[in-house]
């Protein structure tokens, strides 16, 4: 049994919120840099260079890379031998978001009620996905998810007969509809299978993967590559200004599902792909 204190979790989350917003991850930088080399038009190259330059400035000045500092989503793997002391996990995470956003001068972008639409003022509450796992560690994976790209995400209940082609068409269509609104180059997170709601969780979870890391399942990795190629043939390019780099990666997670169903969720992520993790 390991005891983890409320304030340890709170402080870890506050730090992750800031680091995610200030520091673009090395895998994203490498993927953007590869885009600069792939592009032939000066406008597309300049656009990607500016995005990289923005990342430098954000890190150097501890400024958020984008003013939409996102809704916080945390995937927590709770070791079943962990005991949390001093308060609940949910409260610790929300306290962390509150501190992280306020002290980091990050914008509050959460409305408490989706219909009444009043800003909560401190970017809480976060969306939480918890899973109980073996062991005595607490793994916190945090995403700060922008609204512009999230808005371009889609779900569709395909039929098993739609098959692989149906999946490819739906994902490519979603990326094209997102177009410039999602601030390309985008990362396309896809969840296939599971159930209605679980496919969406998988799509979100796939975004936690390192860019360039393919699915361990051969047929899924091939599907990722095929979709990526098609999306990049769309011509949309960086920011929709035209070019070859519409998407940096397509990342698919799959799960078992009902014999009669083929749920597919597509979660669109922008180039300001902000995620960080820590294990306590």
């Amino acid at each position: 049994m390991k005891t983890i204190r409320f304030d340890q979790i709170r402080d870890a989350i506050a730090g992750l919120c800031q680091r995610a917003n200030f520091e673009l991850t090395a895998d994203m930088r490498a993927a953007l840099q590869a885009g600069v080399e792939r592009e032939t038009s000066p406008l597309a190259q300049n656009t990607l260079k500016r995005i990289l330059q923005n990342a430098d400035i954000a890190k150097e000045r501890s400024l958020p890379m984008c003013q939409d500092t996102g809704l916080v989503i945390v995937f927590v793997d709770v070791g079943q031998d962990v005991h949390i002391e001093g308060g609940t996990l949910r409260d610790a995470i929300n306290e962390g978001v509150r501190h992280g956003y306020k002290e980091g001068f990050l914008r509050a972008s959460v409305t408490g009620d989706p219909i009444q639409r009043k800003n909560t003022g401190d970017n809480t509450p976060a969306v939480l996905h918890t899973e109980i796992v073996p062991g005595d560690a607490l793994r916190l994976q945090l995403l700060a998810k922008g609204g512009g790209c999230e808005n371009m995400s889609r779900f569709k209940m395909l039929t098993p007969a739609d098959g692989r082609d149906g999946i490819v068409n739906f994902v490519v269509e979603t990326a094209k509809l997102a177009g410039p609104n999602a601030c390309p180059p985008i990362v396309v997170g896809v969840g296939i299978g599971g159930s209605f709601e679980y496919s969406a969780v998988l799509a979100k979870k796939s975004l936690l993967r390192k860019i360039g890391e393919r699915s361990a399942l051969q047929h899924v990795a091939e599907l990722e590559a095929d979709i990526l190629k098609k999306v990049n043939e769309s011509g949309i390019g960086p920011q929709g200004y035209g070019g070859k780099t519409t998407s940096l990666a397509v990342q698919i997670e799959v799960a078992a599902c009902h014999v009669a169903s083929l749920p597919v969720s597509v979660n669109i992520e922008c180039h300001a792909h902000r995620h960080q993790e820590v294990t306590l």
Partner: protein
Amino acid sequence: MKNEECKMKKTEINLPLAVDVAKALRIGDEVELNGYVYTGRDQACARMFEMLQGGEKLPIELEGQLIYFVGPSPAKPGEVVGSAGPTTSGRMNPFLPKFLGLGLRGFIGKGYLSQEVKDALVKHGGVYFGAIGGTGALLSECIESVEVIAFPELLSEAIHRMKFKRFPAVVLNDASGGDLYAQAMKSEQTTENP
């Protein structure tokens, strides 16, 4: 701006944007804007629209001006502005034809516009500039001053006057009907997977 970027050839444009300068711009042109713009997004634009419907006088003169669709992150103590990149323009679609009709010269944002807005740009000789979404840190360095002009209760969404210095933008829709996004979508690419 720190690296070789600032040496890239760009057309500098002084604001307010003169009619003939606006008319000469073409899609894909990379420009740098110098001078004053107004900021506004969902709530400020909606309020101005309502005021016009009700026959009220606007708190700002739209004639010849540009509106930047932005809601910056909070400025740190002693700094001019926080991260300040564009938000999605399409949410302002319902208001823009009316504003353009009153002489608004154009706006700065990101993402698709409705056909009505594109038609209004052509009709009134307006320009849609794109700023790179998600580069709010970089763009903040091109903003020299910020002051609240109207609707202070809207906080970061209030109408501000911003002074730009070499603010980088790209012409997305020009006054002669050019549409950069549409052109990009038509130019299917052949690519090798990265």
